[in-house]
């Protein structure tokens, strides 16, 4: 845990020190749990006693004081889900994962918890994985759900999601196309650019689907690193002037074929992006 991150979160809430719950929510979003040290910093900076902060943190069930896994599986045991066999499904999850409810697997990838109602009783028994709802879950489907959770559900399903569409982009300096038809990502030609970070220099292939964050790279870029993008043809840096609204890193501009501009955030893991089309051909 980095105390500076906590201080930055507190800075965002400056002006109203009564926002303990939203401060704790932000910390929980960042670390997926509330580290002890973080609570101490919050108590000190909001000029409250640690007892009060701890009381709030331990009162609400959505706050966790223990480290949690990368993915969170919530099995509903509300009345409607209970009568449709939610208990058995929770048991099956426990068996498959080898942990009991409220615990995290030893590889720290999955946390299993039971919740009391998710407000979607007609779809029961319900299981929620990282915000994705699975309805009418049967014990046979548990294995499938666990597998999907392990892979990660943030990946988009290209074939079914209609909000995704491909873009063809080119360099804003030399107007050479970035499209690489030798390598496909998500079933479409990839966008090839070169990146440098921490003394390393290599190619990165991005998905050309607007809304997909799939990426392939020569060197693994650690999350949260800001990288410099270059055109592989003119070797000029793709440096924009605007900064990301999510994380304040510089945006990388690319020209969209057909007229317009797309900008993506240069920070690995940040999903900040901007699409500005001048002429839309449907």
């Amino acid at each position: 845990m980095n105390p500076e991150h906590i201080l930055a979160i507190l800075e965002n809430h400056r002006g109203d020190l009564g926002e303990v719950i939203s401060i704790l929510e932000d910390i929980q979003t960042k670390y997926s749990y509330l580290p002890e040290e973080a609570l101490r910093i919050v108590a000190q900076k909001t000029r409250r006693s640690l007892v009060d902060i701890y009381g709030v943190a331990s009162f609400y069930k959505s706050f966790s004081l223990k480290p949690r896994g990368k993915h969170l599986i919530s099995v509903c045991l509300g009345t409607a889900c209970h009568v449709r066999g939610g208990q058995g499904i929770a048991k099956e999850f426990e068996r498959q994962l080898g942990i009991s409810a409220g615990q995290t697997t030893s590889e720290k990838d999955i946390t299993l918890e039971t919740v009391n109602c998710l407000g979607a009783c007609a779809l029961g028994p319900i299981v929620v994985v990282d915000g994705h709802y699975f309805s009418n879950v049967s014990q046979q489907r548990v294995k499938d759900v666990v597998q999907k959770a392990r892979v990660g559900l943030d990946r988009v399903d290209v074939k079914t999601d209609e909000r995704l569409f491909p873009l063809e982009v080119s360099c804003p300096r030399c107007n050479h196309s970035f499209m690489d038809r030798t390598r496909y990502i998500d079933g479409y030609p990839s966008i090839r650019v070169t990146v440098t970070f921490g003394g390393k220099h290599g190619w990165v292939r991005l998905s050309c689907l607007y809304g997909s964050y799939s990426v392939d790279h020569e060197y693994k870029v650690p999350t949260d690193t800001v990288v410099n993008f270059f055109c592989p043809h003119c070797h000029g840096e793709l440096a924009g002037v605007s900064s990301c609204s999510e994380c304040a890193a510089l945006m990388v501009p690319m020209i969209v074929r057909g007229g317009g501009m797309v900008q993506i955030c240069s920070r690995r893991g940040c999903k900040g992006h901007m699409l500005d089309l001048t002429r839309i051909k449907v």
Partner: protein
Amino acid sequence: MINLTINRLKVSVEEGTTLLEASRFYGFPIPTLCYDEGLSPYGACRLCVVEIGDEKKAKLVSSCTYPAEEGLRVRTASSRVVGARKMILELLLASCPQSKIIQDLASAHGIRQQRFRQEYEDCILCGLCVRMCEEQMMAKAIGFRGRGENRSIGTPFDIKSEVCRLCGGCIYVCPACQLRCTYTEPENAICGGCENLSPPCLEKERFDNMMCYMDPCVSCEIRKR
């Protein structure tokens, strides 16, 4: 001044007086567990219930938190009040049977048995110690944690608090001796009283898992008899 009737006696009290203070001032006893003169009222134990209002509109309120109102009719020992108090005491006995204070109160109310599943808690969550720590000792070392079934009183993360001065005030006010002697675990010690007694207590080793035996504590009283 506010005029009201307590058990048909016309009385007048200053504005802001609670029903409990008024009743006690005029000589009507009301049992309490979570009330202390030097601390803010909390209304946790519900033992101080009284009946206000007439016939159909009559209701039970906790007198320690209810301010006196003009023309209010208060009954501190009606059959409904006594019945409610007995039930509360039975429930308290079911959760905290070792507390001498609760035993005495139950006995005084003529309770001879309790009909609930017996538990052996050592806290009734009355919050006296929390208020003592915050309001009189200005420390805020202990507080409520968790909720519902898992609600408990203690320090954050169950480790010794930096702001705790080992004053022992929490144990002094406790009606259930929740914060038992922790001499054998100096890490989470809250009291430390036995180490500071003069002359030093020679028997402290014997009290490792007993309730604290300092001044108001019940286990000591039991032992003396």
